[in-house]
C-alpha cells in the first residue's frame, strides 16, 4: 500500500508516522495513536462525534484526510485535561447529568470547548447555535447545554467553582441527584466501546449484504476471497454447525441468509482479514448467484391470497394478530350520540444510536466462545447462540460492552453469530464495526402503523365504544413484532375506561427492512391515534381537551382493556400537574391558538431564527422570518 510521511503535534506531543494517503485523520488518531475518545458515529460529517481541534479550529476529522493534517497541531478530547483530572467543562457535564450513553459526549465536550474559546460570553442561544453540528440521541440536549452555560459562568467568574461540586445529600440517597458514576469515563473519552477495543492478533470482519429485497440464493463461491492475501476465512450459512435461527420471539432469522434473502442489506457472507481494507476488498471477490423473486413491499398486499410468501412457516405472511374484545361493541356504538371515524399512519423510524453496531469475538483458553458486544439482552443472546453453534450454554459467553445507545435496536442478534463463527474458524479474535449506512439497512426500525379508528361518544363526552384496527409492516423477519402488537393492543385505547372495545393489531412479513423493538414497543403508535381522536372528539363536542380526558380517565377499580382491575391510576394527578405547570387556559379544542392567552411565557423558548451570534436583541425582535 502507498504511504506518506506524516509529522504533526497531537495533544502537545510531536508524532511522526507513515500513513496511507487516503486514511482519514479520524482513523489515524484512533488506530495509529489509540486516541479512541474521538468516535466515528457516521463517517459523513453529520454527527460531530469525530470533532477535534486542528490549529485551534474545531473540525470534523471524518471529513479530513490525515495527510491534510501535515505539520498541524491537533487537540483531541484526551488532551483537554491531565489524565485523572477533569477540567471545568467536563466537571460541568458531570454535575448536570449531561452524559447518558456517552457516545456523543467527547464530541460534545470538544464542541463546548470550542464555544467557550470562540465566544466566552455566549448566550444560551449562541451556545446551541455553535453546537448545532453535534447530534445526541439520548439526552435531548437540555442538560448538555445547561452544562456549557454552567461552565461558562464558572470560567467567567459569574459563578463560583463550587457550583461544580456535587449536591449535598439529605437524609436519603433515594430521591437524591447523585452524579452519574460513569460520567467521568465518558467526558474524558476514556471509556472503550466495542469499536474501540483491540486484542492481540485480531482480525477484522466485513459483511457481504444482499442487494436484493427478495431472491433465491442459487450459489455462493467464496474461494477467490479466501485465497486473497491477508484473508483468514470466509463464512456463509453452510458454516453453521447447530440449529440456525434467532429472534426475540420467533427464531425465524438465520445468522446469514439461508436459501434466500428477504431484505436488502441482509447478511449473506462475511470475511475476516488482517485489516478492514483487505476485508472490504475480499467481499468484492465473493460470487453470489441470485434468482430474483417477486417482492412484497406493502403490508396490505401481504394479506392478499396471491402475495409472495416470505417465510414458509407463515403462508399467510402474518407474524402475529392480537385481538382484544371487551363488552359489546355493537351495543356500544348504538348508545353513541356521535360516531367518529378516522385513519392514522406512522412511519418507520431509525434508532440512530450514535454508536454503530460493533463487536469482538474470540475463543478463550477454556474453549469458551466469547462475544463482546453492546447487546441489550446478553441472556437471550447466549441462549440462542449456544443452539446455533451447537455448544453447551456454559461454553458460550456474552459480555456486554458499554452501549452507545440502544432504544431497542441492539436487542436483535444480527451480527454476533457471524463473529462467533469466524472466531471458531480461525481461533483468533475477530472484530466487526458497522458503518452507519450498514447499521441503517441491517438493523430493525420502529414498526410503522396504519390505524383505522372508530369511536363512539355520548354528547357529554363519554366514550361508549372503540373499534381499533392496526396493521403494521414487520418487514423481513419477526424480531419483536409479536410483542409490539401485543403491547400496542393492550395500550391501544389509552388511559381511559371504555366498556366496549374491539381491538385487532396485526403485523405482517414483507421484504422491507425489518421492524423490531423500539422504545414504547407499539405503545406510541397506538396512542398517537387515540390521542388524536380524543382531540377530534373534544372539538366536535365543544370540550376542553383536559375535560374530555377527565370524563373518561381510568381510576382505582377501573377495568383495563384487557379487563384487569387497576388498584390505582394516577392519570388524574398527571393531568392536573401538566395543566397547572403549563398554565393551561381552558377552552374547547379547536383553532384557539390566535386567541389564547397562555402562549409564550415561562417554560417556552424563543423561536430559533439563527444568527444569535451576530444579531442584537433589537434586531431579533424585528424579525419576521
Amino acid at each position, binding site marked *: 500500500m502507498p504511504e*506518506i510521511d506524516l509529522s504533526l503535534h497531537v495533544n502537545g506531543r510531536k508524532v511522526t508516522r507513515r500513513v496511507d494517503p487516503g486514511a482519514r485523520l479520524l482513523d489515524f488518531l484512533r488506530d495509529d495513536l489509540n486516541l479512541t475518545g474521538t468516535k466515528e458515529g457516521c463517517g459523513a460529517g453529520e454527527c460531530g462525534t469525530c470533532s477535534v481541534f486542528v490549529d485551534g479550529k474545531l473540525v470534523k476529522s471524518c471529513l479530513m484526510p490525515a495527510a491534510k493534517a501535515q505539520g498541524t497541531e491537533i487537540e483531541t478530547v484526551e488532551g483537554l485535561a491531565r489524565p485523572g483530572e477533569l477540567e471545568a467543562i467536563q466537571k460541568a457535564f458531570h454535575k448536570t447529568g449531561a452524559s447518558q450513553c456517552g457516545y456523543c459526549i467527547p464530541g460534545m465536550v470538544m464542541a463546548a470547548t470550542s464555544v467557550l474559546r470562540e465566544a466566552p460570553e455566549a448566550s444560551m442561544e449562541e451556545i446551541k447555535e455553535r453546537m448545532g*453540528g453535534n447530534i445526541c440521541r439520548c439526552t435531548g440536549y437540555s442538560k448538555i447545554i445547561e452544562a456549557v452555560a454552567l461552565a461558562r459562568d464558572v470560567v467567567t467568574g459569574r459563578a463560583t467553582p463550587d457550583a461544580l461540586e456535587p449536591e449535598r445529600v439529605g437524609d436519603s440517597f433515594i430521591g437524591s441527584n447523585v452524579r452519574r458514576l460513569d460520567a467521568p469515563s465518558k467526558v474524558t473519552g476514556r471509556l472503550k466501546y466495542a469499536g474501540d477495543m483491540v486484542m492481540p492478533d485480531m482480525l477484522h470482519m466485513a459483511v457481504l449484504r444482499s442487494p436484493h429485497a427478495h431472491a433465491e440464493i442459487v450459489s455462493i463461491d467464496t474461494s477467490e476471497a479466501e485465497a486473497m492475501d491477508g484473508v483468514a476465512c470466509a463464512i456463509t450459512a453452510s458454516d453453521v454447525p447447530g440449529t440456525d435461527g434467532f429472534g426475540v420471539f420467533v427464531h425465524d432469522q438465520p445468522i446469514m441468509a439461508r436459501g434466500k434473502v428477504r431484505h436488502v442489506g441482509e447478511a449473506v457472507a462475511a470475511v475476516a482479514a488482517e485489516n478492514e481494507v483487505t476485508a472490504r476488498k475480499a467481499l468484492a471477490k465473493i460470487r453470489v448467484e441470485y434468482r430474483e423473486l417477486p417482492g412484497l413491499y406493502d403490508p396490505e398486499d401481504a394479506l392478499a391470497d396471491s402475495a409472495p410468501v416470505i417465510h414458509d412457516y407463515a403462508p399467510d405472511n402474518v407474524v402475529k394478530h392480537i385481538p382484544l374484545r371487551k363488552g359489546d361493541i355493537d351495543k356500544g356504538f348504538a348508545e353513541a350520540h356521535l360516531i367518529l371515524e378516522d385513519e392514522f399512519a406512522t412511519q418507520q423510524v431509525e434508532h440512530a444510536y450514535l454508536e454503530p453496531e460493533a463487536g469482538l469475538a474470540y475463543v478463550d483458553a477454556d474453549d469458551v466462545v466469547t462475544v463482546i458486544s453492546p447487546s441489550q439482552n446478553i441472556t437471550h443472546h447466549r441462549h440462542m447462540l449456544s443452539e446455533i453453534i451447537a455448544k453447551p450454554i456454559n461454553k458460550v459467553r456474552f459480555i456486554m460492552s458499554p452501549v452507545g445507545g440502544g432504544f431497542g435496536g441492539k436487542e436483535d442478534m444480527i451480527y454476533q453469530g457471524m463473529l462467533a463463527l469466524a472466531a471458531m474458524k480461525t481461533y483468533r479474535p475477530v472484530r466487526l464495526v458497522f458503518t452507519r449506512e450498514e447499521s441503517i439497512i441491517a438493523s430493525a426500525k420502529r414498526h410503522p402503523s396504519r390505524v383505522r379508528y372508530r369511536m363512539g361518544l355520548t354528547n357529554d363526552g363519554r366514550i361508549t365504544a372503540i373499534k381499533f384496527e392496526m396493521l403494521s409492516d414487520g418487514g423481513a423477519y419477526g424480531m419483536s413484532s409479536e410483542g409490539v402488537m401485543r403491547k400496542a393492543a393492550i395500550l391501544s385505547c389509552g388511559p381511559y375506561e371504555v366498556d366496549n372495545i374491539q381491538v385487532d393489531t396485526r403485523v405482517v412479513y414483507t421484504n422491507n427492512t425489518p421492524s423490531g423493538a423500539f422504545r414504547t414497543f407499539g405503545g406510541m403508535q397506538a396512542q398517537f391515534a387515540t390521542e388524536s381522536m380524543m382531540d377530534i372528539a373534544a372539538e366536535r363536542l365543544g370540550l376542553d381537551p383536559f375535560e374530555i380526558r377527565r370524563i373518561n380517565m381510568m381510576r382505582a377499580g377501573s377495568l383495563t382493556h384487557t379487563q384487569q382491575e387497576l388498584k390505582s391510576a394516577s392519570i388524574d394527578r398527571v393531568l392536573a400537574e401538566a395543566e397547572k405547570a403549563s398554565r393551561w387556559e381552558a377552552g374547547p379544542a379547536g383553532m384557539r391558538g390566535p386567541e389564547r392567552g397562555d402562549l409564550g411565557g415561562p417554560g417556552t423558548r424563543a423561536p430559533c431564527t439563527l444568527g444569535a451570534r451576530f444579531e442584537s436583541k433589537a434586531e431579533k425582535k424585528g424579525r419576521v*422570518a
Partner: protein
Amino acid sequence: MLSCERYEMPETLAEALALWTGAPEGAQLVAGMTDILPWAREGRAGDVELPLAIDLSRVAELNGYERHGSRLRLGANVVWQDFLDDPQLAAWLPVMPYCSVWFADDQIRQQATLAGNLVNASPAADGTPPVIALNGEVELCRLANGQLMSRTVRVEDFVTGPGKTTLAPGEIMCSVTVDCAEGYGASFQKVGQRRSLVISVACLAALVKLDASGNRYEDVRLAVGGVGPVPERLRDIEDRLRGEAPDMALIAELAEATADRVGSRSRIDYRRRVVPGFVRAALEEATDRARSARGAAAKKETVNA
C-alpha cells in the same frame, strides 16, 4: 470509502496547476473535502479510488481577499466560517453571514470553501444565489504552454445545471469576485426540517439599498435557488422595485408571480408555495435591515461630526 494513491498539497498555484495539468484520469481537486468524503459512501457513490488528490488548501495565492473599488475578490480558500468570524467581510457582504449561519454547522464551515460550493454546483447549493445576487464572477486559471492563463466567467453562466459547470479540463478556480454591498440590508431565506445541518429544497438571497432619503429603493438584488436546474436572478422584480418606495402590497403581488417560475422536476407544489413567501419575507427583512444600517451609519456620522 475514499481511497487515494497519492495526496499532494502544493503550496503555489504554479505547482498546483502543473500537477493538475498532468493529472491522470480520475484525479480530483479538493479543498475542504466536506462534499467528497460524504459522497464516497454507500448509498451514494460507494467506494471511490482516486489516483491523485490535489489539495488546494495550502496554495498561498488562493488565500485571503482584496477589495478593488466596488468589487471584492475572495480567494478560493475563503471558508464559510470567515463570513461569520471576520467583521470586515460581514460588513462588505451583509448577506453572507445569514447565508453562512444556515450552512451546515460550525465545524464544517471551518473546512468548506465558498469556491468549492460553487464548483460542485449542487442544485441545493446555498452559495450560488447570494453570489449571483452580488454579480459574482469566478476566475479560472490554467496552464497553457507553461504560462499561467486565466479567464473570468459570470457565475450565472458558470453553473449550467445540477452538478454541471463550464470548468474546463486543467482549470482551477482561483477566486470569486463579487460586488461590495456595504450599506445594503440583506436577508437569506432557507427552508429545512430542522435548524442546523440543513440541505434545503429552496433558498433565496436578497439585498436592498435605500436612497439618501431612505424612502425609495436605490438598488434591489434577488436570487433564488431550487426552482430549476440552476439558480436564478429575479431581475424583473429587481427592475420593478428599483426607484419605488417599499410597498408591501406591491412586493406581495410580485412575489405571487414567482410561483409560476418554478420549473423543478420534483416537489413542485411545495416549491411553488414556498418561493413567493420567501420573496416577500426576504424583501421585508432586507428593507428593515437597510433602514437600521442607514440609522447606524447616520449615528456614526453625527458622532464623528
